[in-house]
């Protein structure tokens, strides 16, 4: 499934950049960026503006994966969370560099750029965002 050439040259810049967009009609922020705002629909067409996001947010929910997919087997147990970014959008990502038991709902986090998975030992490496407990967070 992963060897298709098109998938590589049609990469997904938002995985590396936290580049979302904002609807200039209602000011809602989206990540990943949308072609149109689902609330304003036709009013938003052509009026979606790119916006970089801070990568800072808060844990809304989480799990600790003990049985992982093949590409993640070496990482178990690893926490995965739904994070609400400060600008509004919610995303799913791993929480790293902490004890899985320390992850809590409400914990402040910030993004970090990491390797996500790899096709075998000599295949393409996929990069993207993961999250760290915020340095200035006491939670």
């Amino acid at each position, binding site marked *: 499934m992963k060897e298709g050439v098109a998938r590589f040259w049609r990469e997904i810049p938002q995985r590396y950049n936290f580049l979302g967009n904002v609807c200039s009609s209602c000011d809602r922020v989206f990540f990943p960026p949308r072609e149109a705002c689902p609330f304003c629909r036709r009013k938003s067409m052509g009026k979606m503006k790119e916006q970089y996001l801070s990568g800072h947010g808060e844990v809304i*929910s989480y*799990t600790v994966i003990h*049985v992982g997919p093949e590409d993640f087997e070496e990482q178990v147990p690893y926490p995965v969370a739904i994070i609400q970014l400060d600008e509004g959008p919610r995303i799913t990502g791993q929480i790293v560099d902490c004890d899985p038991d320390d992850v809590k709902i409400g914990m402040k986090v910030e993004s970090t750029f990491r390797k996500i998975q790899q096709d075998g030992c000599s295949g393409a490496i996929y990069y993207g965002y993961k999250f760290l407990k915020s340095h200035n967070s006491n939670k």
Partner: protein
Amino acid sequence: MRDVAVIGVGLTKFGELWDRSFRQLIAEAGSKAILDAGIEGKDIDALYIGSMSSGRFVDQEHVGALVAEVSGFSHLHIPATRVEGACASGGLAVREGFLSIASGMNDIVIVGGIEKMNDVGGTAATETLATAADQEWEAFFGATFPGIYAMIATRHMHEYGTTREDLAHVAVKNHANGALNPYAQYQSPISLESVLRATMVAYPLGLMDCSPVSDGAASIVLCAADKAKKYTDKLVRIAASGQASDTLALHGRRDICTLDATVHASRMAYKQAKVTPKDIDFAEVHDCFTIAEICAIEDLGIVEKGQGGKAVQQGITTLNGSFPVNTSGGLKAKGHPVGATGVAQVVEATLQLRGDAGKRQVPDAKRGMAHNVGGSGATCVVHILEAM
């Protein structure tokens, strides 16, 4: 719209059926339904088949025509259509069959659902199920399908004080029901301790909070109600069919622990049938994970939001409770061959309403509900069935 009745049902045993093929399973379920209905192949106007991922599980797409062929209908050239909506594929196939008769287009339709999941290994099966989630924005980052439901559970526990014990009670109840169902994958009761002590899959969900990987098929025959008397005296009418959608990714939803698609599909169904949850006697709900049953009974309006865990703990949803849920054993114990599940739920509801549910019969069951979910709640289909 015309009234639509279920006039025949058929099921295969659910389980790890190493000696049975995709083709054998669907042919068995279909022929049982046809015999049960007392119709012949030539009476059938159309066929709908629900299958989530025959391509990945048995390396075969184009299964609409294939199912018609293995059922012996090739020479009849009936329209045969495959329907896909992840784990809700079966329920959607039932709805397509229902709509095609209600619209007046067809008089008799056969609906099937199938998945043959054990022909690939456990890892491949799990990864195929994960395609029901958002591959680019959830699975890519390491979220597994149990992991996504686990995040629903964590949030539910945080907001409503639901406990791992509450979740475990769902599994214990459904295994107790499965023990009364000769078609179930698991037919033995389990203890609360064994659920709580099982290997962790994705905290807070352990192995016994998860439905199994299953092979199996289910089938029903639908008929325009005014023509159904010719075939059966025990008429069961589909009083309503509701369907709704939501974002594929859990993180895109309004609320992490409410399946809005269930809320909308069920409200659509209640309105159509002109009933409220109080008028329903029992339900087959989509318990792919224990937390899913707790959310289902809340989002269907059977109990108040947040009270699902308590309701299960109090025994309201047991076979002898005031609102029996998953009398068949549910996905948890009966098994979850994903494409078959939505059809098998309608089979169970029909058996209950005909009074043919054997040891797990709900006394005086007059109206039941079938609730089928795709992914973590991006698709939901709800049917209400009534004894006529």
